[in-house]
Every structure is written in C-alpha cells, then in structure tokens.
C-alpha cells in the first residue's frame, strides 16, 4: 500500500502507523462518561470508504486523515489531520 502524504508525496505504508477511525471527536470533560465510552470503545467499523488517522512517523511526523476504502484498500484522499479529533465544545 502507498499513501500519498500531502507533504512528502507517495510513500510506502511501512513509514506510517495506523490509529483508526478519524471521525470520532474527543469529548470534553463536561460531556461525561457515555460520550467518552463511545469515543474510546465503539466503532462504526465501516465496510467501504472510511476516514482514518495515519501517522507518518517514518517521514515528516504529520498525522494524516486518509480516506480509504476498507473493501478495496483504494485511497481517494489524504489530508492533514490537524484538529480532526479536537473537542467541539469547551475551550478552543
């Protein structure tokens, strides 16, 4: 698999490490236990196009949001993940 890092260009997937679904947003403390349980433990586990977090640790150290099809492994978009998991409430 090759991931086109928006900063570095196409690279071997060995340079990257995987975290998982990029959609969930870390709940703020005020949102409480249920929101955090959902964030930490539950997954949509998409069969199809999925947005996911990859870390280019073997390259520029950028966290990336990669749109990839889990059925075919085809990657349709890669962008910086900056702020992807930031809480939408609370201090910004």
């Amino acid at each position, binding site marked *: 698999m090759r991931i086109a890092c928006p900063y*570095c260009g196409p690279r071997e997937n060995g*340079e990257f490490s995987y975290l998982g679904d990029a959609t969930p947003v870390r709940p703020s403390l005020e949102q409480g236990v249920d929101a955090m349980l959902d964030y930490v433990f539950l997954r949509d586990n998409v069969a199809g196009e999925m947005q996911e977090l990859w870390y280019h*640790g*073997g390259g520029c150290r*950028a966290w990336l949001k990669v749109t990839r099809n889990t059925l075919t492994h085809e990657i349709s978009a890669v962008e910086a993940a900056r702020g992807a998991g930031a809480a939408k409430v609370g201090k910004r």
Partner: protein
Amino acid sequence: MAELSWVATAPLSHVLKPGHHGAETGGSGVAYTGLSDFALVQVMARRGKASALAKAAKAHFGVAAPLKPKAVAAGGSLLIWSGPDQFLALSPRDGLASPLASLAGPLAGAASLSDQSDARALIRIAGPRARDVLAKFCSLDLDASVFPVGTAAATSVDHTAVTLWRGEDTAGGAATFNLLVFTSFAESLWHMMLDAGAAYGIEVGEASYGV
C-alpha cells in the same frame, strides 16, 4: 584534580575505515563519506508563525526556508525541509559554541529550536552506482526525473527515520545523496550500507562538513 579531556567522538568513528571495501573489480561504483563537525538545528515554526518564520529565515539566511521537500543552500548553511512548517539548518560546526545561540535571536518568537548536532550522523553517498545502492534500502524513487538536485525527503531506512537529500552531482557527473541518520543507529546502518554496496566496490572516506 584529574586532567579532563573532552575529545569529541563522531558517531561513525569506530566503524568508518577509509579505503576500498567490497568488490575489487572495476574500481569503486560508489563512495561513502562520513561527514563530521557539523551543526544541525531543528527549526519549527510556532503556531501560526510559519510566515513570520519564513520572513525571519529569509532575513537571517538570505534565502527563503524551504516550504517543500527541498534542501536550499544559504551562505554557509543548508536549509533542509523536515516536515510541515519545519526545517533543519545544517552548517559547519563553530567549535564549542551552541549552534542555537546564533539562531535564537534572529528567529525569536517565530520558531522553536532544538540542537540536533549530536543526534545525527551524516553520510554522503556518491558515484555511478549510488542509486543502485540506495535502491536496496530506500523505498523512494530517486530517478533524476522525479528527484532532481536539491530534492529532500524525510523517509525511513531499515525502519528508522532518516533525512535524505540530493546534492550537486560529482565532477564526473555522478549523483550525490546525503543521508542524516540517528546517531544511535549509525553503526548499524553503516554496516548495512557496506553490505548493500559491496558488489559495486566502495570507496570509504571521511571529511569535515563544509570543508
């Protein structure tokens, strides 16, 4: 009081043996040069200060800092892109002076600086077979059409992060690549590189950076 002696030890000093290595036939297909006595500073833009850093860098170095994976020469320094909003400033070492001292003022407020002078070994790989050697441990496409002189890359070798850039061709027209590797990995990678290049014959040398 005991006499103290502060002899610096270069990362490859135990393994770098100048001379010919590997296959004897047909001269050396590749030359490895261990470069020492350099100063290396990681420059990272502070949040929202990328353009301020660019300006400050331009003012200080005389050239714009690279915004893309490039290595640009700036007087005695080389500015090597190392990631978004960051670069490495490589220059000849100035004795015991901290390389941060000269940059802290000019880049104040725009960037965070970390001294990496001792965190990396610098190896130059040049010669007609340089690309063939690199193909054995580097997954990048280094063809001249996609990796022209001055291109830089943050990539991995043997599962270890490295910084790679293409320097000016040798006088004979052969490609030159420069590799910054972590100090603690340097010996291990050096042995790996000797194995990779042995079939072509390797001319091993050492030099001070910028001299």
